[in-house]
């Protein structure tokens, strides 16, 4: 017996938007199976994972708080991904954004102006772009693989941050903990909902998603990049520059990730610490694909992914499930999404061994 994939004639438009929903449903079903296998009541697990986290106002605020960096980064990455520019290093660009934005806050402690925050966001975007410019330059100059370069730079960024908070930027009154001073109020996002942690960074994320939508859906430049991603020869035929696609694709992802980095240190964390992101830069890759590389879809996908983070924490506390459960759910979601994508475009045929 052989398995063979045969192309389907023409997948309908509706089918294109079905896989994320199918993948979400399958992830939940597989989640049931996992909790059964671990000897937990699956209904209780489902409740702890998907309902309890958002059953209070505070829960909803946390959901939006965690969704903000995800939708931000995923929107930036999607712009590149549509042009076949594969920036995998958003996590590192996020860290550089935090270093640039946070560095500004630490070096201007006396400034008490709202413009400080705006300057930090700008500096964060610049930092992220600077980090993304390295793989962009290497790819457009020497045809280096941007996947490897951007990924490896994540670890460089992480070590750079670690050095900064242990040596030059360490808080002298911090009992030797590797962390900076707390930022002044002017360097923090204002809280949107009293007695929650949801801050104005969410609005920044929404604004970036809206700009991203305008770019990919309406702008001529977004169109050119999509042509470059779908058919390189057609882009050359039309006279669209391939190098420009690489640069814009990488820089968009870098800028968005850098802004997300500022959002973390000027938001819930309030200072620079060695670890400022629970892997948002990587989770955002999944968000971008679950959202079909479309900012509107990315908005909803980021809520789902954020729920998985919250649910994973709740499951640890309520059900004593291991902390790896969050990563497991993220992985399942991507796996089921890619699987249903394949099945939308191909059908599986069982073949008996060719009879003579």
């Amino acid at each position, binding site marked *: 017996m052989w398995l063979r994939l045969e192309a*389907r*004639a*023409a997948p309908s438009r509706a089918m294109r938007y079905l896989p994320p929903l199918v993948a979400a449903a399958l992830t939940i079903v597989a989640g049931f199976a996992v909790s059964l296998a671990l000897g937990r009541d699956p209904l209780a697990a489902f409740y702890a994972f998907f309902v309890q986290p958002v059953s209070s106002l505070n829960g909803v605020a946390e959901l939006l708080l965690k969704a903000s960096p995800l939708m931000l980064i995923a929107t930036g990455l999607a712009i590149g991904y549509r042009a076949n520019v594969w920036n995998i290093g958003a996590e590192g660009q996020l860290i550089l954004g935090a270093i640039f934005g946070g560095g500004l806050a630490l070096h201007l402690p006396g400034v008490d102006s709202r413009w400080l925050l705006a300057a930090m966001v700008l500096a964060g975007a610049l930092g992220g772009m600077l980090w993304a410019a390295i793989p962009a330059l290497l790819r457009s100059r020497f045809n280096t693989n941007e996947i490897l370069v951007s990924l490896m730079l994540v670890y460089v960024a992480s070590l750079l941050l670690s050095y900064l908070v242990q040596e030059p930027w360490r808080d002298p009154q911090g009992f030797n903990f590797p962390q900076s001073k707390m930022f002044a109020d002017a360097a923090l996002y204002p809280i949107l909902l009293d007695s929650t942690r949801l801050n104005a960074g969410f609005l920044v994320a929404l604004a970036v998603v809206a700009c991203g939508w*305008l770019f990919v859906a*309406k*702008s*001529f*430049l977004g*169109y050119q990049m*999509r*042509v470059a991603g*779908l*058919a390189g*020869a*057609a882009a*050359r*035929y*039309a*006279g*669209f*520059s391939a190098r420009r696609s690489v640069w814009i694709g990488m820089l968009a992802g870098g800028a968005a990730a850098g802004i997300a980095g500022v959002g973390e240190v000027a938001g819930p964390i309030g200072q620079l610490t060695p670890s400022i992101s629970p892997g948002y830069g990587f989770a955002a890759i999944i968000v971008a694909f679950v959202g079909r590389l479309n900012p509107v879809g990315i908005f909803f996908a980021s809520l789902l992914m954020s729920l998985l983070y919250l649910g994973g924490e709740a499951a640890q506390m309520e059900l004593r499930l291991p902390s790896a459960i969050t990563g497991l759910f993220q992985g399942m979601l991507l796996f089921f999404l890619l699987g249903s994508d394949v099945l939308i475009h191909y059908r599986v045929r069982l073949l008996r061994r*060719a*009879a*003579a």
Partner: protein
Amino acid sequence: MHVAADPAPPRLALSGIRKIYPAVVANDGIDLAVRPGEIHAVLGENGAGKSTLMKIIYGVVKPDAGEIRWDGRQIEIAHPRAARSLGIGMVFQHFSLFETLTVVENVALALDRERDLAALSRRIEEVSARYGLPLDPRRLVHSLSVGERQRVEILRCLLQQPRLLIMDEPTSVLTPQAVQKLFDTLRQIAAEGCSILYISHKLDEIQALCHAATVLRAGKVTGNCDPRQESASSLARMMIGKDLPVCEHPQAKQGGEARLVLAGLSQRSEDPFGTDLRDIHLSVHAGEIVGIAGVSGNGQQELLGALSGEVPLANAAPVQLLGVEAGRLDAGLRRSLGLGFVPEERLGRGAVPEMTLAENALLTAHRSMGLVRGGLVRPERLRAFARDAIEKFTVKSSGTEAEAKSLSGGNLQKFIVGRELLQSPRVLVVSQPTWGVDVGAAAFIRQALVELRNAGAAILVISEELDELFEICDRIAVLAKGRLSPAVRARNTSVAEIGMWMSGLWPGAGNGAPEGTSHVA
């Protein structure tokens, strides 16, 4: 040769062959019988189901229904190896040769058990001498011309002593003289008892060569005949269901200004096995169509890249567009000077397969039709322009939101030609305008080109189809081995002369060219 009471069963007999693909019935109850020693034509337009039928015979595709008999015995051909062991050989339209290997190595790869290359070389020389297919077995394939590569493919089949040889559109890559040589070889092979299935859409060739013909239209058999007894128009009616359309081509107005000038264009090919362009001179004037004939692989790709700006040159001077030295400009900048360009690859170059027709209209028309303002696309204007192209060029589609890949080759070509022509280019470069396009669409496209010429545009057409060039061109030049012949008035030359030039032998070519310089324009 065939007596009425011939008791021998047909070499190959198909009955009721049916093959359905997800979107189309490719073969719908096809009957076909080929006798020993017969050259049998399978005639039909693109998309009529010829290729599917041949793939079924060669064991590449399994039919959904129907019966295959070989020498009267019912059989099933499960894979190409089974077909070869029956004695079926196939020469594909697109060659399957390794360019970096020698002729003998390529042949050895196709024969299942062949280790002794020296002995094989001797056999190749023997067989090639016998059939008039001169070929040196030690040469590397990339150094061979297209015609020579075809010989390798044919030899590879002949060495396996085939009893049925399938030739898929074999003449599309040959000069007229080479076609005659090929026909001699095929007649000799048939005279020795091998049956030949000859697939083509060229009526004159089939009338000259074949003993019998099966005509296909839309997956069904629409005629069985002896092509020697038929006229071209009766064959055409069987093939397309109506008479062949003719193109109105009045005399060109003389004395338009030179709009596209190539002044000593030399360019190294980007492709290691490509052809370098050498000192090309040509001017195309307003109100005329200049054709460039030649077998593909003689520098066509390189010339098109240099003309369109997809491969910008190091110097500006060799390509002059409307008086501007344009050699270093990219494709977009040349287009804004007034250049239109229709490439031969429709999907992936001329159009993005996954995008809608409206989005594909934006590809080249964004500037000239004002479809973008303030960096944003203007959807209303874009749709209106795409609708215009669809209506004026009778593109069959579900509308502006149809994906490019959902269109047939002919309809997509009409859309691309429409998109370029509606921008009123002052210079138009077209490559293989009717390649893989059905007869009706081909006639429409040719007529549209002539009308654009009448409106005063300068048009350059690069095509492998000599008939097409003679139908629409005012002057014709030949591209051979990266050099361009002088352009002569189409009315003062002949297919035979252009055919000879296609092997690089034109007056003044500098390699022992024959005399006769009477009508160089």
